[in-house]
């Protein structure tokens, strides 16, 4: 019996488990292989929707569905928290006392947000990286009657790189619609020397920031929040006063993979081969999605395009053959929508060798994002797109 163990029931874990089970359906039917997903809650959360709770319209309940309903009938689901990985012994311990042996391990362990790494973050800064935080931000925006809004990034890498820029654009549009724009100043703080990591996207976004009167501050790495003075201070020595502060919290990989010696502290990003998605040169351990150290967006889209490669690699190992076909190697494909406000959006599509060439923002790409978000449940986890 060959045992495939997938840790995590997010986009990457769910889709790769489904694709692996399809590739191994004969082996599973013959009792020669099994595929098991271990997930802490048994609930699948569509995280890209959090931003839309903050920006209006979306409800937290609609972003959660039972993981069991998204998994292929051949995949086992264990609802428990993985507490330790024994790489040499090829087993994973769970908080319910069980220990699972594996032949192939898929780490879809995602990443954590760590607002506590910055003093006063919890009481002063808003974010949109959980449903609760996004709801709180929505309330703060509803109560906002004018003043200074500072939007920044308190640690890299972070999930959904365009999100803070999208939030800046969407808030600016909202303030205009509510007649508050003249009474408000907007600042966007980027930790690097331009508005966005990818140059072509930065070149698209910077004129939009200018056009919307959002002041760009580059090389602004958030160091300190002064709650008494309502100041956010950068490591580089800049200070900005705020009435409403919105910061992407620091992120890190799962503590589990740090403790297992698979990923270095403090970041906890798994050292992952850019083509095979093998972790640390091990032939039977793979990673995808937010958990990796790959120089790509931490986004559901990345996991979506990595999953077929993980599935092919794992199935090939189980079947004792070499990975073959178009999914034998990952070439860095990512595709995501990018909101620019006023009902318009654009599309970022790229891979390791081809940077994105975002088309001029229009209504089609904005609607594309809305439709994608609504149809996600029927398409992505089940491998239909």
């Amino acid at each position, binding site marked *: 019996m060959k045992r495939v163990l997938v840790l995590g029931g997010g986009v990457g874990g769910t889709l790769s488990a489904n694709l692996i089970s399809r590739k191994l359906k004969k082996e599973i039917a013959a009792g020669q292989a099994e595929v098991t997903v271990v997930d802490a809650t048994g609930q699948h959360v569509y995280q890209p929707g959090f931003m839309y709770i903050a920006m209006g319209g979306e409800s937290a309940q609609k972003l959660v569905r039972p993981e069991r309903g998204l998994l292929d009938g051949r995949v086992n689901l264990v609802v428990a928290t993985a507490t330790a990985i024994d790489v040499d012994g090829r087993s994973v311990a769970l908080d319910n006392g069980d220990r699972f042996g594996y032949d192939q391990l898929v780490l879809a362990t995602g990443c954590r947000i760590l607002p506590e790494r910055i003093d006063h973050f919890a009481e002063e800064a808003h974010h949109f990286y959980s449903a609760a935080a996004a709801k709180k931000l929505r309330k703060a925006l509803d109560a906002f009657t004018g003043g200074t809004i500072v939007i920044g990034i308190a640690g890299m890498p972070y999930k959904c790189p365009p999100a803070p820029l999208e939030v800046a654009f969407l808030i600016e549009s909202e303030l205009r619609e509510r007649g508050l724009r003249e009474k408000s100043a907007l600042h966007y703080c980027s930790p690097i020397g331009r508005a966005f990591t990818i140059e072509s996207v930065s070149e698209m976004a910077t004129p939009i920031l200018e056009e919307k009167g959002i002041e760009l501050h580059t090389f602004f790495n958030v160091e300190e929040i002064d709650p008494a003075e309502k100041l956010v201070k950068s*490591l580089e020595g800049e200070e900005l006063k705020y009435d409403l502060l919105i910061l992407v919290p620091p992120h890190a990989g799962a503590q589990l993979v740090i403790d297992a010696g698979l990923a270095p502290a403090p970041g906890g990003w798994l050292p992952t081969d850019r083509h095979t998605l093998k972790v640390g040169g091990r032939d039977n351990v793979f990673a995808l999605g937010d958990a990796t150290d790959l*120089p790509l967006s931490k986004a559901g889209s990345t996991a979506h395009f990595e999953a077929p490669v993980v599935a092919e690699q794992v199935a090939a190992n189980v079947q004792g053959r070499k990975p073959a076909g178009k999914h034998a190697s990952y070439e860095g494909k990512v595709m995501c929508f990018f909101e620019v406000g006023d009902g318009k959006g654009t599309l970022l599509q790229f891979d390791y060798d081809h940077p994105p060439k975002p088309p001029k923002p229009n209504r089609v790409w904005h609607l594309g994002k809305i439709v994608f978000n609504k149809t996600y449940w029927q398409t992505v986890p089940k491998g239909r797109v």
Partner: protein
Amino acid sequence: MPAITRTIDARGSFCPGPLMELIRGIKEGQVGDVLAVLSADKGSKTDIPKWVEKAGHQLVGVFPRDGYDEIIVVKMK
């Protein structure tokens, strides 16, 4: 050339990874520390000097090595 206190090998990392690793090194270090960042990402040799200037540290130099650059910075504050 000042003696290097710490070398940050960011050759496996891509923009903005080397800059972020330098920033972490600067935060963890002491005033007067000399940090050498090794980066194979061509953006680093322009991004890192710009950041060093804005953040008020001292750039000792950018030295082309075999397939990568060594960027040496002194923590000034």
